[in-house]
């Protein structure tokens, strides 16, 4: 402790940086949450449980709470199973590379789309005038709204997360272990049951938690698809505040979300710290010649994956089509009118979103690298606390963060409502943790001796950071920048509370279009966002590949030893 303090005093740059970061974290993470709690737990300026109790007593709230948990659990289970089947198919059935690319592309789409995309496509497909329900099946007056469609849309939106989580897990388990089981005389099913599945179990649990949390926090899908019959907490809290102007009630309701969200967070942290998710060591050998599945099972798996991939493709094709016709389901004449609308009436939303994204990107990227570096490499009092606090806004459902910001920054001392700053701050502190995580992971790969070498050659810590560490964590910087950009273009659950006449967002415009039932412009906006996000991510990836540090990392340079 004495040594630690001595070091921080001797390194003024570190002292200043840490102090500034703590001030920012206090203002944009801790303060809003305290204000939120203060609003929910106070009546007439005194601490009280009254508001919370009255919200809890409403049958609507209880139903929403139960519905949220039910939806989250179902999405978690079904999405994890689907993600596992995809990961298993890709890693174990010797799929032709072209098909793997197709599957990867299709599963990537939901991750980079604005949140309403699947929901809108569902309405186009299964709604009252939907392609399948109305045109093909000739059903009249179908009701697309409710648990089933919400569940289906959320599963399709979030199962790619499970797929991406489980793919490396299955790859790490590798053919060798299964080969071992075969060589000991076990059948394929037996090997799967006794080797593959148990080893994948922590990964499966993690995927479930991720999907559960994502569904719990999802605001857009239930808002469009759940309808009156299936209220969930995020939409109820939103309606409470925006519809009924009941800030206190909305705050209390959003805090209910905190219960399951905290549960997930704690379980994950404990598991991660106990090392349950440590990848299995040992060489993950070349694709084994032995097939892990029978030919029949292989065909079935591939068929399932391609069917799901094609269905996703179908939904997006529908969206594209809807953006290019006069009125989907009624008048299928080609037109660019909807795009004209979004670039005229919707222009402000587009420029606002772009400005906010462009300011948020470098800030978020730099903030992520800086915090990641401090947390992974430097010693200072409160380091562990900083790591946890910096993750809070990321771990919390967007609804909570949005309402907390709304309450905290509406009035002096820090009145930010109506400015772009409040939205930028929300994005930076909510979405940079990905950059923090990437930086930490990258720094664990880069041996400390590189920084020590710089130090031994006479460089101060600031110089070392600028000339050695920063260039090497550039991939993390760009990853952080990319995530902030994608989220700026697609997020809504928190920022729906923060937009104003002065500053609005594309996603919010899409929502407004949906409520005005102008589905064409909504589809056009969605297509526009997807195209922009794809273009930017492609550029970032291309840039990443050209970074010497990334190439060096591939060559496993500067790793290990010490």
């Amino acid at each position, binding site marked *: 402790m004495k040594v630690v303090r001595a070091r921080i005093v001797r390194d003024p740059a570190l002292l200043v940086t840490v102090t500034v970061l703590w001030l920012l974290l206090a203002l944009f993470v801790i303060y809003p949450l305290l204000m939120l709690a203060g609003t929910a737990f106070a009546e007439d300026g005194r601490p009280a449980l009254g508001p919370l109790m009255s919200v809890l007593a409403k049958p609507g709230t209880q139903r929403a709470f139960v519905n949220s948990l039910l939806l989250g659990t179902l999405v978690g289970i079904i999405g994890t199973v689907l993600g596992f089947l995809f990961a298993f198919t890709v890693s174990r059935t010797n799929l032709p590379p072209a098909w793997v690319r197709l599957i990867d592309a299709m599963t990537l789409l939901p991750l980079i789309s604005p949140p309403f995309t699947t929901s809108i496509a569902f309405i186009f497909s299964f709604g009252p005038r939907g392609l399948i329900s109305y045109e093909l099946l000739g059903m009249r007056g179908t009701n697309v709204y409710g648990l089933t469609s919400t569940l289906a849309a959320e599963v399709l939106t979030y199962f790619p997360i499970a797929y991406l989580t489980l793919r490396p897990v299955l790859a790490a388990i590798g053919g060798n272990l299964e080969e071992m089981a075969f060589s000991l005389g076990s059948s394929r099913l037996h090997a799967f049951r006794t080797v593959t599945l148990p080893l994948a179990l922590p990964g499966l649990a993690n995927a479930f938690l991720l999907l559960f949390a994502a569904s719990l926090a999802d605001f857009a899908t239930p808002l469009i698809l759940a309808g009156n019959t299936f209220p969930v907490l995020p939409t109820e809290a939103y309606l409470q505040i925006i519809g009924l102007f009941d800030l206190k009630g909305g705050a209390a309701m959003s805090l209910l979300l905190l219960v399951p969200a905290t549960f997930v967070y704690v379980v994950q942290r404990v598991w991660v710290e106990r090392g349950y998710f440590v990848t299995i060591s040992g060489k993950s050998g070349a694709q084994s010649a032995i097939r892990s599945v029978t030919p029949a099972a292989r065909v079935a798996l591939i068929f399932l994956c391609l069917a799901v991939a094609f269905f996703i493709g179908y939904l997006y094709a529908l969206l594209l089509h809807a953006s290019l016709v006069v009125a989907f389901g009624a008048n299928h004449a080609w037109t660019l009118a909807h795009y004209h609308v979004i670039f005229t009436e919707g222009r402000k939303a587009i420029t606002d979103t772009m400005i906010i994204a462009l300011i948020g990107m470098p800030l978020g990227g730099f903030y992520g690298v800086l915090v990641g570096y401090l947390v992974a490499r430097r010693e200072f009092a409160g380091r562990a606390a900083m790591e946890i606090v910096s993750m809070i806004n990321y771990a919390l459902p967007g609804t909570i963060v949005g309402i907390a910001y709304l309450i905290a920054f509406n009035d002096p001392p820090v009145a930010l409502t109506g400015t772009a700053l409040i939205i930028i701050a929300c994005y930076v502190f909510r979405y940079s943790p990905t950059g923090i995580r990437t930086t930490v992971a990258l720094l664990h790969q880069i041996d400390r001796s590189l920084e020590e070498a710089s130090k*031994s*050659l006479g460089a101060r810590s600031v110089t070392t950071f600028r000339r050695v560490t920063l260039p090497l964590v550039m991939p993390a910087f760009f990853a952080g920048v990319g995530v902030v950009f994608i989220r700026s273009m697609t997020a809504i659950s928190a920022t729906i509370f923060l937009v104003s006449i002065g500053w609005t967002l594309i996603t919010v415009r899409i929502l407004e279009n949906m409520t005005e039932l102008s589905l064409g412009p909504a589809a056009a906006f969605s297509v526009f966002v997807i195209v922009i996000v794809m273009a930017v991510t492609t550029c970032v990836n291309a840039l990443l590949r050209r970074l010497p540090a990334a190439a060096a*990392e591939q060559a496993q340079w500067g790793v290990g*030893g010490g």
Partner: protein
Amino acid sequence: MDGIHIKSVSAHFRHQVKGDVAAVRDVSLDVRPGELMTLLGPSGCGKTTTLRMIAGFQEPSAGKIFIGERDVTHTEANERNIGFVFQNYALFPHLSVFENVAYGLKIKRMDGAEVARAVTDVLALVGLVSYERQMPHQLSGGEQQRVALARAIVIRPRVLLFDEPLSNLDAKLRTQMRGEIRELQRRLGITAVYVTHDQEEAMAISDRIAVMNKGVIEQIGTAEELYRRPASVFVARFIGRSNLIEATVTAVSPGRVELSIAGRLHVIESANAEVRSGQTVLANVRPEAIAIGKGDGSEGIVKVCTYLGEKMEYEIEVAGQMLQIVRFNPPPAERFELGAAVRVRLPHEGVQLLASD
């Protein structure tokens, strides 16, 4: 030229299970100006920690460190003017060979032309002419090590510190590189501290060796001193191979000690007569100092015999104890087969008496 003076230095760290652990305990060491001192010991003995404290990467929890006359105990590494060569070379992967070597010079704000000249000179010195534009990952292990060496010496450090610099190289290159390092250090006349766990490397490269074990220095001396007169059982075992034979002292007279080994009396000439009659000791006898043959001596049975070209290695059981014996260039006729009964004679000179732990 500066020496290094370490005075009663300790290093503590917190272990998750064991709590407060001392990696280095009350270590004192004087490295003379221009000398190459090796810290030798098994992993976890505190040698790397000691080196890192000299470099300033780690702060001692007690004691003082001087480089020359200057107390650097609390000086940051970047202000100590040291050259450090890492086990994994620690070349900056995003910088070319030239930029790696120039790094320290640019920090010192040396002007461009001078930097270029200094880098070219030092690269020639380590045998890497026209490697300037290469990236580290394009180089072989030995070349990377040379770049690391060039980068460390180009800033003209007051001391040069090596942390197991050769352990990532293959055996042949290791031998070659240690020769080059030694040659370079002599030519530059720079004080150096070298950490290794390889006793042969230590003996080949050092002026003096400090043998470390469990956070303390067991013995400091030249390779020969350590081999001939180990001060402890640990040093005897760690430097070279040795037979440690249990013996009881039966009589002590100046320069002579009479021992009883497995019931037989044996007289040795001994300079270290710090033993008294009746004491149980371990007699340290090197494998090549034991004679075998027929005639007199203790009876033994050959349990292992290995032909290794220029030498034969035997393990012979004598009175319940296994003795290692090496015969260099034995005459072709001399061959003791497995299971053969032989006579073993211990030498009268060069036997060390060590207190048993």
